[in-house]
């Protein structure tokens, strides 16, 4: 590991620690939200934003920016948390999550929140949007990249597979899809509800360059994004094996934490674990 990479990853880890705390504070205060799928995505978002995303918090709509789309919109507290760490939002705004005032609605809104480029909350739509921005970047001759994070349960949506074909057909090597593969959805495990089968083979056969990683291993996350950038023949999918509720002992791998807010007492225990 190079020294600069090591330093970057240390910073990302610190960011992730703050993000986890803020995700828990937000969902506790709002008495709602989806902490499980936020915590599974946290490490990936921390590395992506700290090491790769070319964005400007002072000018969120800077035309030369990289794009990130949270297609699994219910995990938006994780996105808010990383936007706080990168200066798009202020920590004072945590209290506004799911409230009528403020800039942190329950699901992403590009009309309300700086740093968010597309509203979501209906699953399945983000990859198509990422493809559109990637095609526009190609048309403009820029090296902008489009990242999109998909939930694993979200892959049940047919539009995702339409969009997978589109990205492969147009050889969109500036598109990188990340699957937050935590293996749990609202009604139970994916294998109980509707199995994804051989997920890697599915992406491979759709013409994507597919990388499988441990979505909580910083070096693997870092290297996967680097490999996606280096791969020139088409789009890259990072299948990130993750743990729902990662980082909080009583939330890990528990389906009940898909959509449940921690109580005040649970919050204190969780914050202690994360300190």
């Amino acid at each position, binding site marked *: 590991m190079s020294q600069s990479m090591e330093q970057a990853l240390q910073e990302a880890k610190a960011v992730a620690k703050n993000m986890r705390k803020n995700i828990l504070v937000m969902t506790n205060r709002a008495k709602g939200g989806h902490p499980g799928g936020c915590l599974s995505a946290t490490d990936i978002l921390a590395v992506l934003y700290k090491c790769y995303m070319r964005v400007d918090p002072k000018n969120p709509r800077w035309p030369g920016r990289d794009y990130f789309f949270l297609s699994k919109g219910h995990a938006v507290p994780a996105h808010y948390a990383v936007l706080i760490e990168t200066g798009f939002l202020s920590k004072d705004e945590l209290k506004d999550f799911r409230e009528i005032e403020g800039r942190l609605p329950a699901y992403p809104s*590009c009309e309300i929140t700086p740093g968010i480029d597309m509203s979501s909350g209906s699953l399945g739509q983000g990859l198509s949007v990422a493809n559109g921005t990637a*095609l526009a970047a190609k048309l403009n001759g820029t090296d902008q990249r489009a990242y999109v994070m998909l939930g694993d349960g979200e892959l049940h949506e047919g539009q995702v597979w339409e969009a997978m074909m589109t990205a492969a057909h147009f050889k969109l090597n500036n598109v990188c899809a990340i699957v937050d593969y935590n293996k749990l959805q609202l009604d139970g495990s994916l294998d109980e509800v509707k199995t994804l089968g051989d997920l890697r083979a599915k992406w491979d056969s759709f013409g994507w360059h597919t990388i499988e990683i441990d979505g909580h291993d910083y070096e693997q996350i870092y290297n996967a994004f680097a490999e996606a950038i280096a791969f020139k023949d088409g789009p890259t999918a990072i299948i990130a094996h993750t743990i729902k509720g990662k980082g909080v002992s009583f939330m890990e791998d528990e389906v009940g934490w898909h959509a449940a807010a921690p109580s005040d007492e649970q919050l204190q225990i969780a914050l202690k674990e994360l300190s």
Partner: protein
Amino acid sequence: MMIAPREAYGKALVELGKENKDVVVLDADVAKASMTILFKEVFPERFFDLGIAESDIIGTGAGFAVAGKIPFVNAYANFLLGNGWDQIRISVCYANKNVKIIGHNIGASSGKDGPTHLPLEDIALTRAFPGMTVIEPVDGIEIKKAVKALAQHVGPAYMRVGRLPIPVVTKEDDEFIIGKANTIRSGSDVTIIACGVMVSKALAAAEALSGEGINAEVINMHTIKPLDKEAILKSVEKTGAVVTAEEHTVIGGLGGAVAEFLACTKPLPMKIVGSQDRFGVCGSYEEIHQVLGLTSEKIIEAAKDVIKAKK
């Protein structure tokens, strides 16, 4: 003179492409039917065929808009609205993206293709979205102006484009402003508000009515949303009775929009001419219109009824 709306649309896109390099055109494997192929021939680098994937094409269009392009997204209206409705709702309208959604083969205009291919519900489906502009140009001349206006308008918009030739009722120098209705015949006894091909039928009805001493005013309501309420009020204050006519179901379309407005603002005798809560049939364009009741005779009948209902 008759012009197929789609042909006028394809040519208008080419003209627009020359003037505005931010315009991109997306199609879902119907480029030869939608006539976007004309744009493809001139600007292949700005044309994207996404195959038979109407949900994906809406989302991809929204992505182009995020990046500052002006996407015109094309497919048959029934499939585009049917499969793409949730994507239009979230990725386009809720996100307030500058996407131009073009529904083709509207109404009965694909003729013998039959019920599955006859979109009679698309105005209702698009009109319900907050922030959506809904347009149905009256003829091949107006479509050119509508395409230009759409490119200048910032925000989500839906436009209906028909397949088979329809009569031309406007002139090159007639004005077209989104949201501003055009009164194309003055009258004092009844107001006929129509859109698309039904405007020509409304004019024929007005002509027939004038032979019976009835003066009908005819309004080309090319923009169904936002509705030109001022023009409606101005006309009905004079006539006191209104008939609407559209190549669409009577549920939630132009008639619905006018009724919602007048019922709450100035209740008066009103009839809605349109398809009566049913699917289409296979047949020629005119045969289907006969079956669905989209005729001048129905407009005449309705006009006489509402005049009779006036105090």
